[in-house]
């Protein structure tokens, strides 16, 4: 094996050093840029509870429509509070599991419908027909009396994540 002359070995070292420095510089530039591009995920607390601005006795349909004000913001996503034909108060994450459209409660038909691609859910959130692959997330609803002497129907609606 021929001996590598000293000047050639030094040249290799220099070139390798140059390539390494350029690589390091590129990383030093790209690292902050990549970090800059991705938005910081919002910190979310484990326990979260939202109180609706409306009371139980206000939950009434408007003809065939379920009023828009019964959909509130829970953790940055729309949450619809409904009164089922059977009288139960339920709350669910109104983001359709198909492609993220906001679903609609249909009080006359007793189901939840997604306008975008005709997805259908029942009042337990189960995806019964159409493209949605997963059921809707149901939240825990607590009815809280403000005062013990309040008549029924005046309770506050407290929505939280079920355990």
């Amino acid at each position, binding site marked *: 094996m021929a001996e590598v002359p000293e000047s050639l070995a030094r040249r*290799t070292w220099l070139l390798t050093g140059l390539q390494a420095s350029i690589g390091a*510089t590129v990383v030093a*530039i790209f690292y*902050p*840029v990549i970090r*800059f*591009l*991705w*938005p*910081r995920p919002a910190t979310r607390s484990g326990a979260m509870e939202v109180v609706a601005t409306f009371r139980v006795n206000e939950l009434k349909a408007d003809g065939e429509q379920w009023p828009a004000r019964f959909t509130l913001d829970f953790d940055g996503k729309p949450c619809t509070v409904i009164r089922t034909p059977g009288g139960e108060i339920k709350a669910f994450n109104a983001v359709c599991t198909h492609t993220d459209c906001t679903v609609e409660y249909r009080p006359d038909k007793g189901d939840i419908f997604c306008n975008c691609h005709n997805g259908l859910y029942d009042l337990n959130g189960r995806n019964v027909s159409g493209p949605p692959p997963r059921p809707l997330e149901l939240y825990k609803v607590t009815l809280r009396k403000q005062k013990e002497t309040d008549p029924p129907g005046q309770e506050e609606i407290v929505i939280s994540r079920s355990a």
Partner: protein
Amino acid sequence: MRGPFAEWIGRVKSFFADRLGLEDLQKLADKKRVPIHRTSLFYFLGGMALFLFGIQVVTGVLLSLYYKPSPDQAFESVRAIMTEVEYGWLIRSVHSWSANLLIGVLALHLLTTYVMRAYRKPREFTWLTGVLLLAMFMAFGFSGYLLPWNQLAFFATKVGTAIVGAVPLVGKHFLLLARSGENVTGDTLARFYSLHVVILPLATFAVLGVHLYLVQKHGMSIPQGVVERFGGEDKVPSMPFVPHFLLRDMVGWYVALGLLAALAALFPWELGEKATPLGAPPPGIQPEWYFLFMFETLKQLPGRFFGFGWLEGEVVGVLFFGVCWLVVLLVPFLDPRAVQGHPRRLLNWLATWAVFAFILQTASGLGAIRLKLLASSLVQLGLLDPDPTILDSYRWLALVEAALWSAAATIAFRFGVRKWTVRESMQ
């Protein structure tokens, strides 16, 4: 000695070369050479300006991902960039610092190409596009300055556009065009944003494209004296652009990058206070340093000239600077005998005087010096009333003083230059 990595690089290169016709580019790159002489150092300035412009484009694009161009949201979005977005402080501060460095480099590039007479035939259009680019970069600076919508930005824009309005006949129309209305409002912000992010970048790419094409076509300009000394342009020693000069260029760029990062870390750009359009401007309001020489001059000019009551000082100032820009633009045609190597005495004296006046007025604007010697001397001699209100109307004495100091410095400089150096490469 080709290791496996170099082998792989070679294969990747030939993959693209076979399909994209890169051999033509390679031939052009191999042909380009840079002459070596006493003022070769000046050749780095153009590339440095290009590098800093590249930094502006990259950081600007990144900022545009978070900035919101409406009066309600602009300030808040910049605050979020500085405090919440990861490395947002770095991107924004680099953008602001690089803008200032870029204008400085452009000023030096202008000065050195003038000194080397690089504008002589056939490079007149290179000069013209260059001066146009300088104006466009100053417009970049002016439009970008408004975007944070803080007190400084708002009032600097108000004053700046008001000065545009001082141009006779067409001024009012330019003011309405610039402000998108009578006043500086959200409409102005939208217009400046579009200017800064769409219109100026597109125009700059076009003009810069022509400028760079011309530089490649004509090659690097060599000062006449150097050409004569070696007996012909092709006899001047030179180095290949790739890789010799380019690697030297990149050293400079590396240093500039490090400098920008250091400046961003040690002197982050301030956020300021959100603009309150209906309130008074904060004291000491002034534009960026590269506008100060004009701003100071306009401040010093009297409201009305004695004996010419119809002439507004502001109008005279604006017209004067308009003429100055025109002269700078037309330098190649004002010095038509540059090719033969004839000296350009008048232009040189004017240029030297202009540079000193620029430095003095900028320093005065920054508060680094006070041009009060003339006024206070006249007070001492009893020729001027020391009453402050009277003295205030003699602000223009500061302007005269700046002119006189510049003239003195010019005389000293040019006679010093003549005496102590053999200026064969610059005439």
